[in-house]
């Protein structure tokens, strides 16, 4: 009996060891499957990561370079049009400056594997005129006879339009001072300037259209403060004016001043008309057309850049 008991115990011990071996095998298999899943997931994740493109969207760089070149050439044009540059040398000075700029730009972008070419030899320049009242007086015509007149009498374009007022008509007793854009075949636009309750008011109105908006800034003509309006940059006393940002004449236009007797101040603008058409004006370069090329491994882009900063 004791022998049988010992034999039964031995069988039981050996069975337990075989069962544990099977469990261990199953555990190893389960771990192997989980490991395989992890490997596949990691592979998919790595593949996704490697395909991510964090570089600038292709084409986005061409846009940025185009805008940068346009702004820089606009700065050169503004410098050349300054009063201290003789008008007879402006064209040559512009071309010379653009040549220097073009060479520097070409070298800079070549280091990054791109061809950026600004062709200084093929520039087309359009002359125009600067209309300016640089001393403080009312806004009548230069002969001081008409309060309603056309500073820009023929269809054209205007840029860099600025007004600095020392005095404005009161909104309660007088008609506002009006700068009107008479657009051929489309809605006219009006800028209405007045003063009310210690504020200078500027209203932009599309005649016959849906746009009308007003900006107000503190203004006290008795304390030598100015109301400064930059129509091209859409600012009023240095701050952004949403009403001016909405000014959008659709086509060429004439510019007319109305009720110019009461307001006092200065103004300045550049027009694409020649000095022969616009009296009391100074010849300037109004705009330039500059050939521009941008080539990279993925983009071929050629166009004419129109340089007319602040054009309305």
């Amino acid at each position: 009996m004791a022998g049988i008991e010992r034999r039964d115990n031995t069988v039981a011990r050996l069975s337990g060891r075989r069962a544990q071996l099977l469990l261990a095998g199953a555990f190893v298999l389960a771990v192997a499957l989980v490991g395989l899943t992890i490997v596949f997931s990691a592979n998919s994740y790595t593949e996704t990561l490697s395909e991510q493109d964090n570089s600038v969207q292709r084409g986005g760089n061409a846009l940025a370079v185009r805008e940068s070149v346009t702004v820089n050439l606009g700065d050169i044009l503004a410098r050349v049009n300054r009063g201290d540059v003789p008008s007879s040398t402006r064209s040559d000075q512009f071309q010379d400056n653009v040549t220097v700029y073009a060479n520097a730009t070409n070298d800079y972008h070549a280091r990054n594997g791109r061809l950026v070419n600004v062709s200084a030899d093929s520039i087309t320049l359009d002359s125009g005129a600067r209309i300016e009242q640089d001393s403080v007086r009312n806004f009548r015509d230069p002969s001081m006879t008409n309060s309603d007149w056309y500073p820009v009498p023929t269809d054209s374009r205007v840029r860099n339009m600025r007004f600095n007022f020392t005095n404005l008509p009161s909104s309660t007793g007088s008609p506002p001072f009006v700068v009107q854009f008479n657009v051929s075949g489309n809605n006219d636009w009006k800028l209405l300037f007045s003063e009310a309750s210690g504020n200078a008011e500027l209203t932009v109105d599309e005649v016959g259209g849906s746009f009308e908006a007003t900006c107000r800034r503190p203004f006290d003509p008795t304390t030598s403060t100015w109301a400064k309006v930059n129509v091209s940059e859409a600012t009023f006393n240095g701050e952004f004016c949403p009403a001016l940002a909405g000014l959008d004449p659709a086509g060429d236009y004439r510019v007319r001043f109305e009720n110019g007797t009461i307001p006092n101040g200065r103004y300045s603008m550049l027009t694409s008309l020649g000095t022969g058409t616009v009296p009391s004006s100074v010849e300037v370069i109004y705009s330039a057309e500059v050939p521009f090329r941008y080539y990279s491994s993925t983009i071929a882009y050629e166009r004419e850049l129109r340089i007319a900063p602040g054009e309305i």
Partner: protein
Amino acid sequence: MVGDRALSTTVSYTLLIAITFALVGGLIVGTDTLIRDQRQQASQDQLELTTQELSSLLKTADRLADSNSRTNTLEITYGLKRRVAGSQYVIVIDEDTSWSGAGTRYEIRLLGRDFDGSTRTVITMQNTEIDLQGGPELRVNGGPLRIDYDQSSNELVLIDA
């Protein structure tokens, strides 16, 4: 002797093996389902990403071309993925004729060929139009793409690169 009553070694082994196979089988089935769901999700995510890349590319080309006639040449080559999660896809572009605002509105859809996935986005082109090549919609195979600007018609032409 009392501890051995109603105890069969064979039954123990059989139960052990059955439980082990049940557990391992369940693990395999669960993992398979998980991987399949993950792959479907990864495919959809990749399609979404590709759709956004394409719409961004078209908007950039629209801005480069501008609405005037001064752009003489514009060619953009972009390497969209040929396959998404191992499967091909097709790009479908059609015009939203009900759009009455400024510019031209297009609907862009990416459809998987071998898997059940699709994405949709809408873009508005302000300066140019997309050449639908005479049809109601444009179909292009997914993969490297070239966009050419046709100055005469002020349209962007999409071609397999």
